[in-house]
């Protein structure tokens, strides 16, 4: 029975990783660009929420409502001022610029908040749980998982059911032709990155409420997110959710065997899937 419990906890943990990855998957789907600073931007959003919660004495969920538009602005400006200059055929500039950004954000956070680990206080939610048969489920992990599904659903709807989504898809397919139709690819990219940062803020809320964080944990979270995106198949939003679940389950299963193996078994699961399904479980193009 302990395996059922491990499996369920793993699936729920996967929800958190899917949240880390959703913004990344969205941005990659539209721009074919990966943002190496994504993990650090999530950590930055977690600090932003923490500051709002402590300074204004808000509930974390209300703080998210303030943080989300702020993060949208951060993403929009970042894309307009910096990243749009790097979009093109060459993969090197965006990689190196976002890598530099990652180092800058990490150290700026260290300077501003020191290296102590923090947590976003969530009151009684932190320890609340309920039982389903033999399995005890924490309210917080369940909430995270439900949010991951909602976020994926919302992104999917935006992508395929709105004018904005049509612009996203058009720009992704062919930016030159899209611009003939009155779309400015630069603006579309900026909105996409802004949206990615809104998702990052949501991920940050759960990251900060569920566990301690400090300025340096971004890159490790970024790796899980990337693994989820690649496992799911690049550009597939639902695939990313499944990818997150695969990593989460592998990690909790590994940890159940030997606590030292938690992280390692997540990475190994990723490598195994890379061997058998190099294009991921649900590659785009099959949709």
């Amino acid at each position, binding site marked *: 029975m302990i395996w059922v419990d491990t499996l369920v906890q793993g699936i729920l943990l996967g929800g958190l990783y899917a949240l880390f990855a959703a913004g990344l998957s969205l941005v990659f789907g539209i721009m074919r660009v990966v943002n190496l600073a994504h993990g650090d931007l999530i950590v930055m959003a977690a600090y932003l929420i923490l500051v709002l919660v402590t300074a204004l004495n808000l509930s974390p969920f209300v703080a998210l409502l303030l943080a989300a538009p702020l993060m949208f602005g951060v993403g929009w400006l970042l894309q307009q001022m*910096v990243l749009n200059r790097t979009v093109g055929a060459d993969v090197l500039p965006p*990689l190196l610029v976002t890598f530099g950004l990652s180092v*800058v954000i990490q150290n700026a956070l260290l300077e501003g908040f020191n290296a102590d680990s923090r947590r976003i206080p969530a009151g009684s939610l932190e320890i609340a749980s309920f039982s389903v048969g033999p399995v005890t489920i924490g309210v917080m992990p369940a909430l995270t998982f439900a949010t991951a599904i909602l976020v994926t659903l919302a992104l999917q709807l935006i992508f395929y059911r709105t004018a904005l989504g049509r612009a996203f898809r058009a720009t992704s397919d062919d930016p030159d032709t899209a611009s003939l139709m009155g779309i400015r690819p630069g603006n579309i990219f900026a909105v996409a990155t802004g949206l990615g940062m809104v998702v990052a803020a949501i991920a940050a809320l759960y990251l900060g409420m569920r566990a301690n964080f400090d300025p340096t944990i971004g890159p490790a979270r970024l790796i899980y997110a990337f693994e989820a995106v690649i496992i799911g198949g690049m550009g597939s939003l639902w695939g990313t959710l499944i990818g997150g679940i695969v990593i989460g389950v592998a990690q909790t299963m590994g940890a159940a065997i030997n606590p030292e193996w938690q992280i390692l078994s997540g990475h190994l699961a990723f490598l195994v899937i*890379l061997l058998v399904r*190099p294009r991921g479980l649900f590659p785009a193009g099959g949709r």
Partner: protein
Amino acid sequence: MRYRVQTGHGSSWVVALVVLVIVIVFAALPFFGSRSLMQDLFFVFTMLTLAQFWNLLAGYGGLVSVGQQMFVGAGAYGVFAAAILWGINPVAGLAVSALAALVLALVSAVFVFRLNDAYFAIGTWVVAEVARLSFAQWKAVGGGTGTSLPREARRNMWGTEWVEEVTGLRAAAAMDVVSYWLALGLVVATIGGIYWLMRRRTGLALAAMRDNPQAAASVGLDARRIKLAVYVISAVGAGIAGGLIFMQNGRVSPDSAFSVIDWTAYVIFIVVIGGIGTIEGPIIGVIIFFLLQSLLADLGTWYLMVLGFLGILVMLFAPRGLWGLISGRTGFALFPIQRRLKLKERED
């Protein structure tokens, strides 16, 4: 019309002479330089070696890796495992470093070469993390906390005794001299080797692949094979450098040997700031990196922020780096690898 393909320029032999004099002065340094100067130069030479190999990988091969620390770590553990488990002299242990890096490169290539472009970068990072976590499980060389190089292994390092006799230095200083010479030899061999490689057909093939992959493939270039070769060469080079760095260090731990900041982030900034895709760029970059570190190291986090900002600014406004600014204005190259077509009117 007659034509010939020319690499280099009229003053190439002057440059060669200057380079030779510089190398000789560096080689003779232990006889008149201070120990701290040698330690600084050891650091500069090993970082420059890593930078040259990363540049070969990313600048020439188009393979942006964020996982070179895997090979540095493998090389470091190669020397330590050889000395501790099998009693191999640390200098000979560098061969174990190279071998360890070679094996890891071939194994990891199976995985990372399934990914393209940006995802290749992530793939290299993941396998490097797997390597770090796996080496942390190896209890015989200290597990997660790491271990030190045994005293006798350090004392018996090849060449130390001879240096003690010739220079009259104490054992610890003599070991520094041996490491210094090894680092100098490594960086000279690295730059010389890459220069040689770039002037051969390999260099032409790499340039062709970078400039137009389809056209390169259509004239029969096997891009995968060449990229794999570049990946393996860079891995072995980083492995030897890693073995040397930690041999000099005397202590190894998974977190220090597989540090993404120390062995990849710094290296990337060195190459980008100096000028990616050139042999001269990393040399300029490492000098700037060393100066910045000497000036700002006390400031800790600010130092890294400055480095990050500088990297971003260079990438946005001078993507060919500082050396690109110099050579773009003057057309001058220390290590000419560009091929120029010279046309001559037939005289008859």
